């Protein structure tokens, strides 16, 4: 077999998979054209349904819609902002977990706190529902102790939704996120710590002057990734926790575009238009954060 022929043959082997990637990941970008049409399924789009920028103008010209988008943006920024503000938590969690000298206990804590990462949001919601419902564990204990008279409706409450969503996110992810820091901690030069001990450093001093500074580069990348994904909270968590009471403050962008496409008559073009804007802003954010990362660390994460 000639070299050239082999070179094309190898390309042909992967061609079907490249086509699959094209269809699954690139073709939906072409789907953005729905934002420029008056699309009402099942009627397909055609030259007659083309409306140009109508739906983009609609977002800014319709005061109700604009207020809606504003509210959703506030929710998105709040949820992402809280996550960002507490993004140090897994790092501190790992630092002090590493301070536990009793290895089986450390292992146990690590195992148990990582488990929630591997269950779906539906299961998280099921756990929440079973534990927090009016006859669930939490209300049973609180009523039993006489701290409250009647059960609290945790899940249908519209107070502190942002913070409670952060708590569930942390419940699910913190143990897992800590593993990366634990790996980084185990890479710290043992001699540095020994030297500090000889000089009489206390444990807090070692943590503060050695461990945490060694973890900061990792933490920096996490912060940058958080910023790059600022608009993308995903919809699953918010979708499963959403109900009529908390809907106003739980709707993030990803959930909002789903809701406008699926509720009522379903406005696909408007939803696509907002999706499109979000995707473009997200890519810009990715470039900016990657650029910042290159400036600060000398290398990007893309």
């Amino acid at each position, binding site marked *: 077999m000639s070299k050239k022929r082999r070179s094309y043959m190898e390309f042909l082997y*992967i061609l079907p998979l490249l086509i699959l990637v094209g269809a699954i990941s690139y073709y939906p970008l072409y*789907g953005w054209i729905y934002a420029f049409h008056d699309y009402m399924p099942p009627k397909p789009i055609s030259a007659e349904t083309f409306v140009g920028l109508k739906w983009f103008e609609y977002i800014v010209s319709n005061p109700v819609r604009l207020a809606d988008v504003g509210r959703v943006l506030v929710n998105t920024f709040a949820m992402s902002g809280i996550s960002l503000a507490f993004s140090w938590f897994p790092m501190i969690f790992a630092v002090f977990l590493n301070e536990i000298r009793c290895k089986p206990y450390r292992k146990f804590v690590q195992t148990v706190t990582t488990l929630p990462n591997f269950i779906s949001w539906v299961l998280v919601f099921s756990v929440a529902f079973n534990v927090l419902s009016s006859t669930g*564990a939490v209300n049973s204990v609180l009523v039993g102790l006489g701290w409250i008279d009647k059960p609290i409706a945790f899940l249908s409450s519209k107070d502190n939704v942002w913070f409670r969503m952060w708590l569930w996110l942390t419940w699910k992810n913190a143990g897992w996120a800590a593993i990366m820091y634990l790996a980084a901690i185990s890479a710290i030069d043992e001699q540095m710590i020994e030297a500090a001990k000889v000089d009489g450093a206390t444990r*807090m001093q070692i943590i503060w002057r050695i461990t945490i500074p060694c973890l900061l580069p990792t933490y920096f990348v996490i912060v940058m990734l958080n910023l790059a994904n600022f608009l993308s909270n995903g919809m699953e968590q918010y979708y499963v926790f959403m109900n009529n009471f908390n809907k106003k403050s739980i709707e993030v962008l990803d959930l909002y575009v789903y809701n406008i496409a699926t509720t009522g008559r379903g406005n696909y073009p408007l939803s696509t238009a907002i999706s499109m804007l979000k995707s473009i802003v997200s890519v810009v954010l990715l470039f900016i954060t990657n650029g910042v990362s290159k400036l600060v660390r000398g290398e990007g994460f893309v």
Partner: protein
Amino acid sequence: MTTKTIPQKPVLHAGKHVNPMDRQSFGDRVISVITYIVYAFFAFVCAYPFYYIIINSISANNLSERGKVLFWPMEIHFKNYTRLANIPGLLDAAKTSVLRTVIGTVLTVMIAAFLGYMFTRDTMWKRKLWFRFVAVTMYFNAGIIPWVLCMRNLGLANNFWGYIFPMIVQPFYIILCKTYCESVPRELQEAAEIDGAGTLRVFWQIMLPVIKPILATIAIFAAVNQWNSFQDNLLLMTNRPDLNTLQYVLWQYITQANSLKALISNTTNSNAIMAGLATAATATSIRMSVTVIVVLPVMLIYPFFQRYFTKGIMIGAVKG
């Protein structure tokens, strides 16, 4: 009767650390104690909900219904689980979930291995371009609604393959395999090629056995992803309730109390009611036992894949 003395290891400084550098100051000890307590709390918060659901699902239903089962199972029975087989749709959902997990995982792993290997072949026409073409898809997405509309156009909506095709080409995993293949000595491939083996044969007989360790990691994470997937069910399978997965069915049971009530009246015959309230199905009992069924597979493989954790987190941190 003589008492045996247990031979003890010679202890130089019984009870205390030998190394003076490890001696803890008072402040250090306080930190230790606080750390132990705080982490006990974290562990409890993460573990107790699962324990609570499990003990409730095997306790008397009239007690679990009223939130009386908190610490240990009471009046243990397994009716809640034997009854699940009679709930219409649940078995179908279990089949769909298992099927998509098996097919999806096998394909994801094979594709990651194959593309990972092929992207190390310098001989391939425009290799770098194709690699970037795949890798860059990690960093953008069109948004769910355009995606759904396009999947409909491709005929993947309301079709079992809608669970499979969108998930099997994962750039993360491909890059991981590529990096792993690059670490394998080139001589291994070259020797086989001199013996006349073609590209595919080198992949199948030489590389695949060598990169098995990384494939195990990928398989486990891909399987968990498939099993847990809910969004594709929600978005794509709108007209095919027979294709619902366990995750989706569980979610319906939790949020649509009415459909659950209908199920209960169907599955509970008068005999069960005569037999006493303790084993009669309630909304709580069905919810909890289905939750256990859905979470169980993950919990069962969990001990085996703990050692892949560090590798797994690298999947998320790997560079293209």
